[in-house]
């Protein structure tokens, strides 16, 4: 049996019958498929909001995925759950490689929403998330601003990851416009605080005039900050980074980190799950049979935007 020739291209006129149900049952299960399932940022934002939503709605929320950042394993998990026909899938859009399995779920008639990063080749019913390119651009602009348009900067994150690479690109595209800004390079901290610290320490030695470091994974910020603190370079080396976990906020308060760009991750999963629910229960119908008519009764794409934090507003975020 040969695979279909078209990989699919966001074609919503696919006439798969979506499984819909009139009554809400307590056994109705919404499944989140993610990877690096224990990453604190995921646990405390995505998963917490998803669970809260399920509790409120009186349905079941399951969160599945491998403990490491492992896309094939995320796909494997996904594939093993599809035959069980849950009420809906909330998929962490980790990598374009998951497109096919998303299509499998869609073809199985299960409402499927992708969150965080969009997956271009997939036919998911909806995407809700932010734009990593935009987050990189925001960091770049802030960096330029606090450095007055000149100085040596580097970026740090996990090399090769789609969203990070998009972020790096956003950052770079801004920096390129300022000839006095010198971009030194991208460094791989493997989402590891010790490595981020070590690389930063080595960078400070190699470039005594290093002006700024931009971080792109959750552990970049604390690692960079540690070495900047230990080298007595607070204020001399500016730090911008992603995420707004407690330790990030604390470091902004201490003045070590200058700028944070956070995602509205709770929105991803809370609204995403609600869309799944609405689709399953035909909360809004545009025709007698939306699936047959080729109508997906939920938004195609929601961009949630970012949260920007610096010293001026950090106190409002600390719980």
């Amino acid at each position, binding site marked *: 049996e040969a*695979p279909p020739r078209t*990989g699919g291209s966001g074609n919503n006129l696919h006439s798969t019958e979506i499984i819909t149900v009139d009554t809400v049952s307590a056994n109705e299960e919404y499944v989140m498929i993610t990877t690096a399932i224990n990453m604190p940022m995921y646990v405390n934002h995505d998963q917490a909001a998803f669970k809260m939503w399920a509790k409120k709605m009186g349905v079941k929320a399951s969160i599945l995925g491998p403990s490491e950042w*492992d896309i094939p394993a995320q796909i494997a*998990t996904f*594939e093993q759950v599809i035959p*069980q026909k849950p009420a809906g899938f909330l998929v962490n859009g980790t990598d374009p490689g998951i497109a*096919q399995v998303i299509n499998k779920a869609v073809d199985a008639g299960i409402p499927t929403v992708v969150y965080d990063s969009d997956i271009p080749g997939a036919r998911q019913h909806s995407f809700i998330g932010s734009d990593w390119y935009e987050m990189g651009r925001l960091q770049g602009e802030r960096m330029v601003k606090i450095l007055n348009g000149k100085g040596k900067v580097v970026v740090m994150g996990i090399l*090769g990851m789609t969203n990070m690479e998009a972020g790096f690109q956003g950052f770079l595209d801004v920096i390129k416009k300022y000839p006095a800004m010198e971009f030194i390079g991208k460094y791989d901290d493997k989402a590891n605080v010790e490595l981020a610290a070590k690389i930063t320490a080595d960078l400070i030695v190699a470039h005594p005039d290093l002006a700024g470091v931009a971080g792109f994974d959750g552990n970049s910020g604390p690692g960079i900050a540690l070495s900047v603190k230990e080298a007595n370079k607070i204020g001399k080396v500016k730090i911008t980074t992603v995420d707004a976990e407690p330790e990030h906020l604390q470091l902004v308060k201490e003045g070590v980190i200058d700028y944070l760009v956070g995602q509205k991750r709770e929105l991803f999963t809370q609204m995403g799950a609600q869309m799944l629910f609405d689709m399953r229960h035909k909360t809004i119908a545009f025709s007698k049979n939306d699936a047959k008519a080729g109508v997906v009764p939920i938004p195609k794409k929601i961009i949630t935007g970012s949260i920007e934090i610096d010293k001026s507003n950090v106190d409002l975020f600390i719980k």
Partner: protein
Amino acid sequence: MIKDRVVTLSATILLLCIVMSFLFPSQFPTVDNFSQIMLNLSIDTIVAVGMMLLMISGVFDLSVGSIVAFSGGLAGYLMYYHDVNFLVAIVAALSGSLLIGFINGFLITKIGINPMIQTLAMMGVVRGLSLMLSGAGIQNFPYEYNYIGQVKILSLQSPIWYMFAIVLIFSYLFKNIAFFRRYYFIGSNEKAAHLSGIEVEKMKLWGFVIVGLLAGIAGILLSSRLGAALSTSGKGLELRVITAVILGGASLAGGQGKIVGAFLGAAFMGIVGNILILTRVSGYWQEIILGIILILAVGIDQLIQKKK
């Protein structure tokens, strides 16, 4: 003793399956579920066969995970950026993987670099290379390429067939072919093997070449199955595969193990993974429970064997 591990592991797997079938009668013992489990362990198993070969001869290879990424990356790179025909791309990717294995083997046997250091260093080098090749991922392969890993034969997806073919072929080879049989000699007493006229160094070099090739095949299948080459694929695969192979009866000291043990070890891990998904164990508990199951599986086996 060696035989025993194959037997006890098969028994454990069977037992697990029976229990799960009672607990989840409509979800676990279905063709769909099993073909999913098989599909997901096929890549690991193909690499595990090569790892078993190496561990029988007393060494192991940490670079396999990177080779998996590299092979798919190279094929994807050639097809996507240079419009190379898919067959040529595959040949190139497999040759590349084989070459990496050869370099590993050459440096280990001829220069005498510690195998762990060599393959660990190679793991980094090859990961770097595949990062360069596939960057943030390559997609949109030719249909024929995707066909290789996505076609279904008798309603089982092709990687499953490749896996069975490789396991069967290597099982046969290790039972009947003098060349492969010699790995047992090398693993149990390298010096004596040398004195018995076995070309230990050449054989070991071949071992690394074979594992490189198998990892390359796994990489092609993975990328073709996913329809994408990811620079992060195969991360952590080396430890998973070594675990499977040890579970399946190999020992770090060498000289023991059977090819089918590699499959059984991977199958055990795959079924446990499936169980964790079916029972919806998630988050923190996943790692904890997986660890405990591993310890229990091996521990009980040990206790039984000791009693004997």
